[in-house]
């Protein structure tokens, strides 16, 4: 632990990133539902209204498409807005503004227009929030040229990635995980930026490469401990940025271990895991000792009932089983 590292919550780490960047750059402002007085539904923006005032900490009506579009417009004209969409499920209301406008503006203007917008949202299965509040929709943003996409799994990564996202001159989507807001981790104090496009090996191991992001990372680390007791050492690689993707770190790990398991909370079909698998297959074909295992969410909306809900996404036991299959153990 570095001298300035201390243990804080994921939501506090995000708060620090916002606070530092708002102090550093008067162009940074935040918008979203209930983020001002109330400090946000997940308390990420607590205290910011007091320090920065209502002009830079803006409570919006329930009008996602328009306030996101306004964020795009403000970004084009010199501001650095951080727009919060309370649930990634509601991002469906802002897709025109994000995909047709923000993602394409720089290209369509021949590079002269820039959109330094950050779209913050959160997703993933929580505790019984059911179909419209539990999705993992990163694939939609992953698929869109012109967008960057980060998904922090730890408080340190959250602070570092959000800081870099705000400083980036192009639109960045930051998808947090609702179950991680209260997770703890070591976070450097002061300004802290993690370069986008750099993966993090969360755990080293020689037998199998386990690739996961966001809420699945802690689950994979737990599975890795379980596997270590059987003598199987898993290397857990967290891409952190899905776009741009750190292929080099992933491929180096694959070449080392020759066995791959990718764990994704989102539905398998058309998901990021499948794309990463195709990259590995193309670039490290001769290093695969087993077919690439993909664990993903089932092909369904998330049910309300708890047992059904948990049956829809990869659990620790599933990860352990997948690793065993991959290493023929």
């Amino acid at each position, binding site marked *: 632990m570095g001298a300035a590292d201390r243990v804080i919550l994921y939501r506090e780490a995000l708060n620090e990133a916002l606070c530092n960047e708002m102090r550093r750059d008067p162009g940074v402002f935040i918008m979203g*539902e209930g983020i001002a007085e*109330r400090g946000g539904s997940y308390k990420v923006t607590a205290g910011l209204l007091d320090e920065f005032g209502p002009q830079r900490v803006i*409570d919006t*009506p*329930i*009008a996602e498409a328009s306030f996101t579009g306004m964020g795009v417009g403000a970004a084009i004209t010199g501001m650095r807005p951080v727009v919060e969409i309370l649930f990634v499920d509601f991002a469906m*209301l802002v897709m025109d503004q994000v995909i047709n406008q923000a993602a394409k503006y720089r290209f369509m203007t021949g590079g002269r227009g820039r959109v330094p917008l950050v779209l913050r949202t959160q997703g993933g299965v929580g505790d019984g929030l*059911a179909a419209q509040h539990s999705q993992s929709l990163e694939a939609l943003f992953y698929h869109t040229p012109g967008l960057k996409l980060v998904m922090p799994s730890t408080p340190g990564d959250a602070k570092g990635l959000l800081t870099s996202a705000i400083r980036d001159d192009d639109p960045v989507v930051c998808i947090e995980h609702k179950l991680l807001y209260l997770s703890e981790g070591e976070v450097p104090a002061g300004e802290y930026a993690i370069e986008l496009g750099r993966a993090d090996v969360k755990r080293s191991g020689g037998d199998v490469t386990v690739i996961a992001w966001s809420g699945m990372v802690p689950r994979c680390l737990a599975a890795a401990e379980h596997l270590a007791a059987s003598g199987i050492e898993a290397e857990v690689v967290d891409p952190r940025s899905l776009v741009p993707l750190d292929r080099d770190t992933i491929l180096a790990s694959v070449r080392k271990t020759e066995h791959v398991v990718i764990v994704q909370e989102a539905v398998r079909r058309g998901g990021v895991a499948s794309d990463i698998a195709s990259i590995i297959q193309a670039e490290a074909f001769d290093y695969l000792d087993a077919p690439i295992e993909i664990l993903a969410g089932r092909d369904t909306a998330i049910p309300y*009932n708890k047992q059904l809900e948990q049956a829809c996404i990869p659990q620790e036991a599933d990860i352990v089983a997948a690793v065993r299959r991959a290493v023929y153990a």
Partner: protein
Amino acid sequence: MLPKALLTRMYRTLYTIRAFETSSIQLYRRGLIRGYLHPYAGEEAIAVGVCAALGEDDYIVSTHRGHGHCIARGGRLPEMMAEIMGREPGYCRGRGGSMHISDIDTGNLGANGVVGAGIPLGVGAALGAHIRGEDRVAAVFFSDGASNNGVFAESLNLAAIWNLPVLFVLENNQYAVSTPIEQSSRDTDLHHRGAAYGVESCAVDGNDVVEVYERAVEACARCRRGDGPVLVEAVTYRQGGHHVNDPGQYMPADRVAHYRERDPLVVGKRHLLEEGATEDEVAKLEAEVEAEMEAAIAFGEASPEPSVEAFVAELEAS
């Protein structure tokens, strides 16, 4: 004045909704309900008054705060309880939960977890009926928060230009989660928005079931005559925060007290007594409802959980 039988029915429904919400909160605290629970307590008169004015073949669409509408539309308590407890015999087989509870057979197209999303669904139901030449009205419940969403403006306009039989019921409880209406609307008389689209609009006291009912009857008649949609803004107030885990500390005490005095159950009971019912009759009615609620809760608690194996098999077969 309204007939006693109608008032009795309406009061019974008011009381049932209140009992259901109170029970739900308790069940939530006991861990039998999880996730989100948005109690309708304090707003009952709107659902009851409007649904009492609807016919059997009409549609309703509601919000995330949808238990009240479901009950007012004739939802069966045991199946509702089972649903919000996530059990197989629930209305949605335990898969929808509180925010997605629905009963298609009674024309209840469902609660919705996305604010405003139900509005076009309801207008669409009216469109279908219109094309088929059927005499149906779609009562679309939505919140003041939803009235700031683009989809409301578009839906209002479409219903207007196509003359659709839609009763837009704007439940103005004066908060969008924690954001007060004054911060999100310059003109807090939200029914004024209807006029901008050429829609007949009015405001009612959302805590007075009789006023709501009478306005709703007029509105439905208008729709059925083919005179187009109607926007009714029913002003009310939550008894509690946005959802079960929100204490609503941002709600000023004096306003909370003001609306407590005007509790829809108090108002509804007063109407009933004025029409000749006795305190005993009322007490008896309340006891019956409570017994029903007990039975419904027991049914819910005894209901089986859905089978994971069957669920997975179903997924793999599809």
